[in-house]
């Protein structure tokens, strides 16, 4: 487990009474939680428990019914001009299960286009930064490859670099390895471990319990739209408090 020193006492992400429904079906039934600066939180739970919905509300890819989400001091779900929301979003890195690289752009263009078009970073600076990020995810030689020419693991690493290019203080991962062939999971997790070691605040929905054990500071267990356990991984894996968590963990082992 890595220990981090919070640079600031206020939490990076603060969820208060977050509720959300699809029609009559309530997906999130009042979530109250915090992610400290530099903390790595892994969210796990059975499918349909609302964990993907939860992480998508943090950068407002999903709207919420009630409650509030504050990220890095900004109230994400308050009414605001579109331009302001765009700026907030650019400060929250998001990595998708299905990568969602832009297939018409090469790897390096994928990384550079948003700093240039959203933040107005000068071209040379954006490409220098992109090159640096590609090195960091171990894909310097693939700068000019198109997404269609990359393996799933490589695409996801480019997607992580793309999110990092906006220099966000926090990164959200929505099942980043679920769409990958097993032999490619490791390379993506390695990049994520590196990020955690550098002190990045991370919120990560994943089924990779090994990653949770090694990297997470805390594990949130979600079931039926509520966080029913929140504990350091050692505690969560060895002494789950609820029967639902116990069943979930025993199902994973079998």
């Amino acid at each position, binding site marked *: 487990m890595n220990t981090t020193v919070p640079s600031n006492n206020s939490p990076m992400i603060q969820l208060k009474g977050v509720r959300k429904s699809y029609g009559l079906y309530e997906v999130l039934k009042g979530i109250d939680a915090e992610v400290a600066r530099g903390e790595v939180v892994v969210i796990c739970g059975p499918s349909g428990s609302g964990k993907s919905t939860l992480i998508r509300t943090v*950068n407002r*890819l999903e709207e919420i019914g009630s409650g509030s989400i504050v990220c890095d001091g900004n109230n994400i779900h308050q009414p605001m001009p*579109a*331009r302001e929301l*765009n*700026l*907030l*979003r*650019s*400060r*929250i890195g*998001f990595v*998708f299960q*299905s990568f*969602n*690289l*832009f*297939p*018409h752009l090469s790897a390096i263009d994928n990384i550079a*286009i*948003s700093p240039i*078009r*959203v*933040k107005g970073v000068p071209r040379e600076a954006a490409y220098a930064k992109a090159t640096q990020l590609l090195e960091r995810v171990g894909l310097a030689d693939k700068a000019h490859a*198109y997404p*269609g*020419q990359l393996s799933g693991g490589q695409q996801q690493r480019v*997607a992580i670099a*793309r*999110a990092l290019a*906006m220099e966000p203080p926090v990164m959200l991962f929505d099942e980043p390895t679920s769409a990958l062939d097993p032999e490619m999971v490791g390379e993506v997790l390695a990049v994520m471990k590196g990020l955690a070691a550098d002190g990045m605040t991370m919120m990560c929905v994943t089924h990779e319990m090994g990653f949770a054990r090694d990297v997470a500071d805390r594990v949130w267990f979600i079931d039926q739209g509520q966080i029913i356990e929140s504990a350091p991984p050692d505690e969560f894996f060895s002494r789950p408090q609820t029967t639902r968590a116990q069943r979930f963990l025993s199902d994973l082992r079998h």
Partner: protein
Amino acid sequence: MISDIVAIIRDYWLLLLIGQYPNGPLGGLAATLMLSVLAIAFAFPVSIALALARLSKSPFLNWPVTALVYFTRGVPLLMLILWGYFLVPLVTGANVPAFLTMLVTLVVYQGAFLSEVVRGGIVALGHGQMEAARALGHSYLGAMRYVILPQALYNVIPSIISVFVATIKDTTLGYVINVPDLTFAASQINNQLLTQPFQVFFILAAVYYVICWSLSRVAVLTERRITRRRAGTAPQPTAKSLKLAALTDQPS
């Protein structure tokens, strides 16, 4: 029979090519091609605007465009041309050449068709691209401009060429309001000769065939190129893509 055809071409090639020009308006094949190129050139930006309006959540943008699309899909082009012939002079208040009336009608008609093609291209990309762009902080229009449209428009280039071919074929309907195009020239020749209608209309069909066939080939080759560039991820045709294809590939 063949010697008749050769003789007609020898005697009337200039009329078929440019109509009465310079003693009258530009006509014949030149007018047909000019009409088609101008129609598609104006219809293209119109179609992007219509597609974006149709995808918009605002009912004020979405509703009228949806109505327009269904209108053009449900009413024969011939009726629209008659409307144009009646309405365009009312709007402009002047004696409008048939060429211009036809151009306006074609821009509206093909603009609406093309907007469905563009919209189909955008929808086919799926939510992921828009979400990823928005998550990176792009505005809606920024995401459209830099992420969605470059892909969608590139993917639908073959369909755009198909719409162009359809436009060339549609220009023949200008005949009913006396647009001096290739078909008009051929019927003039037929009226002069009187005795060789088969030969005249055979030539007419052959000229259209050569032009439209060549362009259709370009569309097919472009499609293959695009599929190859997608690095072997060419999807199988789905019921949805077939529906889209049927929309652009209309008899006319």
